[in-house]
Structures are given as structure tokens and as C-alpha cells.
């Protein structure tokens, strides 16, 4: 009987709701009891967090000689061109081979197990992809500004598997950020832990926060100066490989401006809690909680303008990832719709199906070109605020649409795990919605 709910079921529903949110219970109308229960709950939630014990690594402070090394701007030819340089093509092809030979195959298992399979991690380390944003002068592999290179590489990796791409390149984002914004001392202290014999297991760029309508320019995480230190308080959500990470770059509001701060995982007051999501499973996302975390004031990374630059480069990285996975979608559905038959002919012979594939291709290509344009402007040292925002908006609008088409075109087959499509659907939802994690 619609519209009539029995008392028993009302209670049951209240009870169910209480599991999620105790605030709904009448017994808690009394403010004092409510405070007590909330305190308990908070402690309970904290129990979920664990101090970063995995983080034994000591980052011994070093002094860099002279000024910081920066990637030099890539000169432009003054010609409209869509051809990558030979170096870029080489790196892209290496990433493509890795995607086809390793990532695509491993994607399903990584999604199930929420981690990078050992063989994949080894192969990735061998390729040295995490150093594509670090200049050669700092023992990285970038000859010059590398946003375009980064976009091409992320595109290929995500064509293999998006969440593995995030798991692998999340670490690269920290190396790239220190190369782009770090002082000579910061570069000398931290970059050898990426370029050296014993690289960090993982590092993470933690900008995202849990609240809805999160605006990265107004983070709730705050930093307060205390003598020679900064004291950080706040929560970062969906941090890639938070448990494994030995080094974090977090954003925090300092003197009314959003800034980047380097935080070592061993810092007191830093806690990590598992934070699984609908996708990005291989990146084993975690929530980072900072409670009165003290770091040296020298850990402030770059300026407020650099923080803004990091947001833009991160959004562009997501756009490149969206391009790659959307390409995987297109490659698969174009075969599927001419092989699958219904009503006596391939379903691709019907306009409703064929036009959907055409729309995927059109929006994908537009997004790719917008991403390349913004990246090329960054490399040329030009302002790219608008171009990055365009790529971001196209990602927001179309990556999800393409993910949805990917499932819809296969019908029930798209919904079951027999095909990659349901995973693409889940992973593509992240690309236009999340901030941080990756950077080019």
C-alpha cells in the first residue's frame, strides 16, 4: 500500500538510518546525550585511522647548490601542428606498449585487489615513467617543459587502465611538483628519493577534501605559522596510495591563501584511513587526516601562484586520463557494434547505435585537442587558465557521457564484469570530478 507506512517499518527505517547517521534518533534530541554519543562516534572513526607507521623513511635535509633547476620552456615553431616531437613520440610509444602489453591485461585484477600487481609495479619502475616531469639536470628524464609529454603518456597509460595509471603516476605528481615549484634545498632533499637507487614506494599529491562543492582554492585544511614551523589541521580525501605513500604534498590555507606543503609520512599527527571509492580501485585511495601536524616552515612548496598552477596541471592530467580511457572505449565499441547482431543484422547498422559511436569519437577528439592545446601553452610558458578550464569542462561533460555510452552500447554485457566497460564507467566518473592525485 503506497503512502502508508506502518509504525514498525518507520522504526526500522529510523534504525537503519541511525547506522549511517545517529542524528536521526529521537533519543538524541537531548543535546548532552547527543554530544556524548558524537564523541564516541568520533573516537570510533578515529580508530579507523592509523598512524603512518609504514613511513620509516628519513628525508635528511640537504642544501642545494645555487638556485633550483627548472624545466626550460619548450620553444614553439609558430606553426599550427598536431605532430609530437620525436622524443615525445618515443615516450608515448613506450607508454603505449606498456599499456597494451601490461596494463590492459592487469586492469581487472588490480581493480578487484585494489592494488598494483607486483609485476606491473616492477615494469613501471623499469620504464621510469615517474620521472617524466623531472629535468635531466635533476637526474630526471625531461629535456624541457613536459606538459605535452605528460599528457601523451597519461593518455596511453589510461588507454591501458585508468586506475593503474593513477596508481603509478600519482607518485610522479609529487616529483613533478617538487621539480616545478621546489627550492634548491627542497629539490636536493627530496628528488633523490625519486631518482636514486631506492625510490619511494609511493608519494601522493593530496588536494581533494571530502566536503561537497569542494573548491581547491578554498581548502578547509589550514596551516598556521608557529615560529619556524607550520601546524597543519584538516582532512584530505581519496588520496592515491595513501597507505604506501612516504611523502605527501598537501594543500592548505595559509594566511588566507591556498598553498602547497610538503609533509613526510612519518610526521606526528598524520593519520591514514582507508577510503575506497566506486573507481580508481588500483590506486587504493585513502583519507588523510592531519591533526596538529608540525612541519618546518621550509616545507612550504612554491607560492600561491604555484598552488594555482598545480591545480591547473592536475586538471589537465585528469583530462589526459579521460582521453585515454575514452579511446579505449571507442576502440572496443567500434568492433563490438559491427560484430554483435540483433534483428538479423549488426547493431551498428542502426543509426541509434552508429550515431552514439560517432558522438563518442567527436567529443573524444575535441577533448583531446583541447587538452593538447592547454598543455602546449603551459610548455611555452603562456597563460593557460582558460585553456585548462576548457579541457576540464569538456572532461566533466563528456568523459562521463562516454563512460555511460560504453556500458549502454553493450547492454547487459556492459553491466557485468566480463567486459572492461563497467570499470571504465566507474573510473571515468573520477576524471572531471576530482582534484589533485595526478599532475603534468
Amino acid at each position: 500500500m503506497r503512502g502508508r507506512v506502518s509504525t514498525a517499518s518507520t522504526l526500522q527505517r529510523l534504525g537503519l538510518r541511525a547506522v549511517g547517521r545517529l542524528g536521526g534518533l529521537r533519543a538524541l534530541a537531548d543535546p548532552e546525550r547527543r554530544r556524548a554519543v558524537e564523541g564516541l562516534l568520533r573516537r570510533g572513526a578515529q580508530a579507523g585511522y592509523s598512524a603512518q607507521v609504514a613511513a620509516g623513511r628519513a628525508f635528511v635535509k640537504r642544501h642545494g647548490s645555487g638556485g633550483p633547476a627548472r624545466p626550460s620552456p619548450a620553444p614553439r615553431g609558430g606553426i599550427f601542428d598536431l605532430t609530437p616531437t620525436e622524443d615525445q613520440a618515443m615516450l608515448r610509444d613506450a607508454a603505449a606498449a606498456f599499456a597494451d602489453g601490461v596494463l590492459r591485461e592487469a586492469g581487472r585484477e588490480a581493480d578487484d585487489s585494489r592494488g598494483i600487481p607486483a609485476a606491473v609495479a616492477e615494469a613501471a619502475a623499469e620504464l621510469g615513467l615517474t620521472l617524466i616531469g623531472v629535468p635531466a639536470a635533476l637526474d630526471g628524464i625531461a629535456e624541457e617543459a613536459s606538459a605535452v609529454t605528460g599528457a601523451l603518456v597519461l593518455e596511453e597509460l589510461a588507454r591501458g587502465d585508468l586506475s593503474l595509471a593513477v596508481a603509478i603516476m600519482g607518485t610522479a605528481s609529487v616529483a613533478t611538483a617538487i621539480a616545478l615549484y621546489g627550492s634548491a634545498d627542497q629539490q636536493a632533499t627530496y628528488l633523490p628519493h625519486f631518482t636514486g637507487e631506492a625510490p619511494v614506494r609511493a608519494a601522493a599529491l593530496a588536494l581533494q577534501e571530502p566536503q561537497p562543492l569542494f573548491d581547491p582554492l578554498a581548502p578547509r585544511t589550514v596551516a598556521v605559522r608557529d615560529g619556524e614551523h607550520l601546524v597543519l589541521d584538516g582532512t584530505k580525501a581519496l588520496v592515491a596510495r595513501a597507505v604506501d605513500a612516504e611523502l605527501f604534498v598537501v594543500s592548505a590555507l595559509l594566511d588566507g591563501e591556498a598553498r602547497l606543503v610538503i609533509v613526510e609520512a612519518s610526521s606526528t599527527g598524520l593519520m591514514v584511513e582507508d577510503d575506497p571509492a566506486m573507481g580508481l580501485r588500483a590506486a587504493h585511495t585513502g583519507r588523510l587526516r592531519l591533526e596538529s601536524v608540525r612541519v618546518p616552515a621550509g616545507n612550504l612548496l612554491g607560492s600561491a601562484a604555484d598552488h594555482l598552477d598545480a591545480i591547473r596541471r592536475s586538471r589537465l592530467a585528469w583530462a589526459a586520463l579521460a582521453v585515454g580511457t575514452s579511446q579505449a572505449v571507442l576502440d572496443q565499441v567500434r568492433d563490438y557494434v559491427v560484430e554483435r547482431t540483433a534483428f538479423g543484422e549488426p547493431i551498428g547498422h542502426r543509426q541509434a547505435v552508429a550515431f552514439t559511436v560517432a558522438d563518442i569519437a567527436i567529443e573524444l577528439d575535441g577533448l583531446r585537442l583541447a587538452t593538447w592545446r592547454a598543455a602546449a601553452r603551459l610548455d611555452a610558458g603562456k597563460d593557460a587558465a582558460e585553456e585548462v578550464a576548457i579541457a576540464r569542462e569538456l572532461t566533466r561533460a563528456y568523459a562521463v557521457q562516454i563512460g555511460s555510452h560504453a556500458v549502454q552500447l553493450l547492454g547487459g554485457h556492459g553491466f557485468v564484469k566480463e567486459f572492461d566497460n563497467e570499470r571504465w564507467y566507474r573510473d571515468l566518473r573520477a576524471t572531471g570530478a576530482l582534484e589533485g592525485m595526478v599532475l603534468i
Partner: protein
Amino acid sequence: MIDLEVPRRLRPLVESAAAMADEVFRPISRKYDRAEHTCPTELDVMAALIDGMGRSGASGGAGATGAAKESPKSSQDKGIRNGANLSSVLSILETSRGDVGLTLSLPRQGLGNAAIAAVANEEQKLRYAGRWAAMAITEPSAGSDSGAIRTTAVRDGDEYVLNGEKIYVTAGERAELVVVWATLDRSLGKRAIKSFVVERSNPGLRLVRLEHKLGIRASDTAAFVLEDCRVPARDLLGDPEISTAGGFGGAMQTFDNTRPLVAAMALGLTRACLDLTRELLAAEGVEIDWDRPGAVQSAAAARLLQLEADYASARLLTLRAAWMADNGIPNSMEASMAKAKAGRTCVTVALACVELCGATGYAERELLEKWARDAKILDIFEGTQQIQLLVVARRLLGLTSAQLT
């Protein structure tokens, strides 16, 4: 090296076209919207200017005449070219930002000129140089299905005799030449379709009427009847033989070059709408913040962000199609992608801008309502949205026109 900016060499051309849009087209835009079928004589001087730009060599071609396919290069030749297709797209975008109807009325810049540039032999190109050519494909019972046209061409000595009916001929009244599609033998289907250059003064080509339209009223749209219209045989464009393959395809190749141009018109109109709407909304305190998520901005700002993103996507798809043509890379699919995206974007944006500006958008005091009327044709002529999607899908899926109809 990947770079998607307007090349330095073409910037002066773009600036000249932009000046023409602002200083010449805009001031007379409303006048010719109201005075439908009146020839905008102000444009004669402009056409001379564009001819000059084309000849100067500095621009590498400005208008529709410039768009021609380059032959594929040898693998040794690594030099990337920004040529006539790109410059045409960029300059047409600017003039269309001024006014699409007036752009279509620019003497010697007709779509027929683009067809001639695409498929004519060298002797023909020389002979038709400097003359304004319109394009006549559509018939009362054959629009998108251009393979189904009924106008016939029968060989008679050194001439062809054309009979049939043509409608929706842009600039048909004002042009000096009309490129007419006709079939040599209806029983042989599409491959028997050829295009003929007919002198506007030919007594067999009779103007029946000019259409009254939703938009682009500055541009005349003519209907003709061809009655025993005798055309010299040398005015058949391309190969006169009915080959088993590639005949109709040859005629259709025109579209690979003209679709990016029409996409550019749609982009120009879209740009006009966005520029004015952003100006009007800024006066109301609404501006896009490029660095904040749309969801934390006002609904109007978030909507503008969406519209700008679709514009940028359509623009880059169009520049890519032109870049491919300039570098001898086959671009049928990419030309249709550009036209599809630009066509639907211009309609969406123009209508959204009317909505965002309310009464100011809907009333005739501003040009927004006119642009919203002009926009619709850009998703129709030179191949409707649906035809573009068919072209794209057939290419993507490797299907023939018989399999995917």
C-alpha cells in the same frame, strides 16, 4: 611539434578579417536582415580587398577559393604546412562573427568557388578565376540524399543539355556562375552524377523565385529551373567518364573542403553570441572564473563555461580538419566531425545566449535573436547534423552507405 595556436604568419590576415567584421559587417547586419533580397553593395569593395589578400601570398588564401586539397607529400618531406585551408577557416570564422549572411554574400567567395577549387582541372581553374560561383545540388525531392537528384545532362555534340529543377541555391541570384549537379544516366546511380559550371546568364537557366527565410536573410537563396540549358562540354568539372568507382565520390570530395568552411561560419556566429552575452552578463556582475569549478559559481557563469568549452572543442576540430587538408592528409571523417560539432554547438549556444540575456536577448535591439535565427541553417546546409554523423559513423565502423543508411 604540438602547438594549437593561430600561426604567427596568419595573424595579420585574421586581424584584417576581424576588422572587416567589426567595421563593415556589424553596422549593416540588422539593415540587411530587415531588407531581405536587397543586395548588400557595401560588400563589393570588401571582395576586392579579399581578392587582394589572396593574391598577396602573405595569407595563402583568404576566402572559399583558397580551400583546396594539397596532394599527399612524400615521406621525406617533414615540413608541416599551414596553408590555404587553415587561413580560409580562420578568416571565415572572423567575417562570420560579423555576419554569416553577409559572409555568404561576399562576391567570389561562394561555395561554388570552393567546389571549383576542389575538383576543377588547371585549365578550368584559370578560366573561372575571379568569377563568383554558386552551388546548386538540392532539388525539391532530393536534399540530403544527393545521389537521388533528377536533373539530367545529355551529351549533344560539344555541349551538354541540362534539364531539371534546383532549389536552395545560396547566392544564386547574385553569382556569375552556378555549379549544377546533374546525372548523365539515372539508371547508373550516383556514379553518373557530374557537376557543370553554368553561366548565370545562360538563357536555359531560369530564376524562379527567392526564398523568404528564418535567418541569413542578407544572403539570397534562389530556385532555378533548367530548361534545355546548353552547356559547353568543357564546363563539366573533372572527369567526364562514368567510372565504376570514385565518380560520385569525386563530386562528394568537394565537401571535405567546404564542410570545415561552413563549420567556421558556425564558429564565427557562436563567438559573436558568446562575446556579446559575456559583455552583457559582466555588466550584471556575472563573469566566468576559469579556476573554480562550475558548481561553485553562479548558474549563469557555469552555463557560460559549458558553452565556451563546446565552442573551443568545435573550433579545434575545425582547425584540425583544415590542417589535415593543408598537409595532404585525407580528412573526410574529420571534416564531418568538425561540421557536426560546430553545427550543433552554434544552435545550442545561440539559443542559450538568448535565454541568458532574457528580454534583451529575445528583442531586436541586440543581434542575439538574429543570430539565433541565423544559427539553424548552419546545422543544415552543406550536410545536416545527421548526414555528418552518418559520414563519421561509416568511416569509424567501416560500413558502406548500403549497410548504414
